[in-house]
């Protein structure tokens, strides 16, 4: 699939550019078009578990709606109080409505762009590509990868420690102070084992000849190809189309520090 084959660094770069460009515009039409086209692009160019995708999108939807509603209700005095719009029998000034909508859709379009990256990129490939394209130090990159492996292990360990302490008869507390001291108690065994594990991993990595310098080869080589530029061009075109449409409809407005 097209989106999955792109160079991860270039993909991230493209997404960041579009997000920055999007931040310059403050109207409801441009981000709406981008939001919809991003989702269509996911459909066409990516292989995605849709159930999971919408599950991830859900919190953003709720957040966007909350933002929309509060902005609408607590809007400042409109300049043109005459123009109103009716939602569910309530009248709202048209101007406030547009500001609220612009804010909400903005959140959604940024969310959709980020999800596009997250759902079509393998984290290991992303880090390897960062080493190869952006010259990230292997010391840091492989450290991050090893740490990434640790997270699920630590989660399991926390569960075991919790049970072990329960067996010792440490009372389950409900006060905030009690909870705090309880977590402090979990922290010592958890950190002690994390440090030991990290040390062992470091030794194992070093004894496989890892020195952290850049003179290494790669099994998975990442290069920037025509496809990546094509993706950048597609995204920029989408952006341009969105801005032009918004302009034609008379909505286009540059961002001016509104909230």
């Amino acid at each position, binding site marked *: 699939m097209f989106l999955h084959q792109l160079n991860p660094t270039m993909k991230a770069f493209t997404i960041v550019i579009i997000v920055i460009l999007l931040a310059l515009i403050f109207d409801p039409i441009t981000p709406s078009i981008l939001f919809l086209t991003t989702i269509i692009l996911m459909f066409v160019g990516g292989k995605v578990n849709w159930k999971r995708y919408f599950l991830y999108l859900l919190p953003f939807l709720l957040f966007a709606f909350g933002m929309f509603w509060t902005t609408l209700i607590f809007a400042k005095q409109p300049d043109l109080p005459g123009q109103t719009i009716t939602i569910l029998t309530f009248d709202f000034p048209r101007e406030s409505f547009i500001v609220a909508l612009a804010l909400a859709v903005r959140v959604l379009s940024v969310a959709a762009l980020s999800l596009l990256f997250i759902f079509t990129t393998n984290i*290991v490939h992303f880090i390897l590509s960062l080493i190869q394209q952006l010259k990230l130090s292997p010391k840091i990159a*492989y450290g991050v*990868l*090893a740490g*990434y*492996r640790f997270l*699920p*292990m630590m989660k399991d*360990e926390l569960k*075991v*420690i919790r*049970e*072990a*302490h*329960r*067996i*010792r*008869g*440490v*009372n*389950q507390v409900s006060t905030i102070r009690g909870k705090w001291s309880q977590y402090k*108690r979990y922290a*010592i*065994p958890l950190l*002690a*084992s994390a440090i030991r*594990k990290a040390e*062992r*991993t470091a*030794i*194992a*990595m*070093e*004894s*496989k*000849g*890892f*020195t952290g310098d850049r*003179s*290494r*080869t*790669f*099994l*998975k*080589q990442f290069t920037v190809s025509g496809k990546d530029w094509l993706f950048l061009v597609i995204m920029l075109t989408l952006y341009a189309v969105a801005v032009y449409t918004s302009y034609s409809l008379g909505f286009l407005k540059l961002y001016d520090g509104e909230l």
Partner: protein
Amino acid sequence: MTPHVTVQDLSLRFEFVERDTLSGISFSLEQGESILVLGPSGCGKSTLTLCLNGLYPRELDGALSGDIIINGKPTLSYKPGQLSRIVGVVFQDPETQFCMLTVEDEIAFGLENIAVPREEIEERIDDALRLVDMEHFKQSTISTLSGGQKQKLALACILAMRPNLLILDEPTANLDPIARIDLIQTIKRLKSELGFSLIIIEHQLDQWTDLANRCLMFDKNGSVFFDGSMQQAIRSHRKEIEGEGIWLPKVTQQVLPYVNDKTHDVPLTLEDFSREAHLWSGIQWDENVENIELETQDIFLECNQVSYIANDKTILKDISITIREHEFVAIAGANGSGKTTLSRILAGLQRPVSGTVFLGGKPLTEWNEGELRKEIGYVFQNPEHQFVMNTVYDEIAFSLQMKGVHESEIQERVGRILKLLGLTSYTKNHPFTLSQGQKRRLSIATMIVDEQKMLILDEPTFGQDAATNYEMMLMLEERYQRGTGIVMITHDMELVHNYADRIIVLHEGEVVADCRPAKLWQQPDRLLREWGLDLPIQVKMQRLCKKEDQYHVPTST
């Protein structure tokens, strides 16, 4: 020909430590030779590994003296990373040797480090996977592999780099017996195929001895007191070996009390033993006699049609078992058969999806947490998980204080336990600063101070050295004699044979056997293997002797 590895008068001392971790070690190893390195835990065996692969002195906080010469050059003259082409190490813990997510990437990691060209990497990965018989796992995620597979992968990663010295640093300590034998077989095959030199650091010697007869024995002070064949060591240094807590092969342990003739070679393996079984007819086999009438004991814990499902996977299916008061029950079975889940449910730590567990006739769910803890104790695999206080004294006093026992009585009881554990001089230490064996003893002590009626232990011998296990079993035995029931998850069949009244075998979430150990050993070998069990050494030797008798009887009459 110059030796492959020469170590001359090597001494090493860590910063802030008052004594040498390694002192005055000298030995040499020929190309293609194998050697076993033995010694009590903390004697510096693993430190030696890091000296040999060049990590020390580069990464060492401390001082090192003496020379290590590999392939005619001192290790210091190799550039960082260069030695990894010559020396490969497989470490003990299968969880912490990897830094990538998939099998393929992990093997590639080492090759990328030494700048093998890309085309060749692919080829070498396939080669290495073929050597350890894991071709089908090339694209697998490492976290989905079993412990044994992870160790084989660790081996493949090293083999891909084509070292001519392989160091195995307790590679089987965290594996179950079946996976252990599989790994050792693999190494044996590779050794004859590839002919590398081999340094094996181990606690449990069985199966290794026919791969390497020469052994290097360390004492507690980090110096070598013996270098030579195993047979010779048993003849001339038996006292020291026992004193240092070095574990001899199981067969040898069984036979040793009957050896009078000092010049005779003692058998090290079952094969050695079978060749001369007729010589050992005098051995008294421990029959594990029925010391208590089981049926007369009251039922303590009753498990009624318990099932457990997690993530759509059935872990336990309709388990119905009873555990009587003052019983020593072993729970065995292959990895993933549901042993740990069952033990957690018995202890009331997890709730079954369906079915009920009764304690004294009352469902566990109706027990109040505090009361339940006075009845059942649970010892976790890693002792550190259970420590909640900052000093050894407070650790033991903790549950007594929770119960509101009077301060003077606490002092008296804690004092008694500390004396029993041999930890009197450590009262003010933090539990985490104790040695491995001390931690294990302390963790059990914190559980038995309450005098619970039953103690559940989750693989307490896993990844611990033999001396620690021996001490632990002494403690448990004493407790058992005083009336505490014990339920232990274990892979150790010798332990089951020696101690357990009853063994429950789980296979794919179901109870397939629930009987006396002696009765289980009569099951066909094929079935036992399918359940992930191996016969205890005593039973195997006993059978060999019997076979021998039958063979000899007709000829002698």
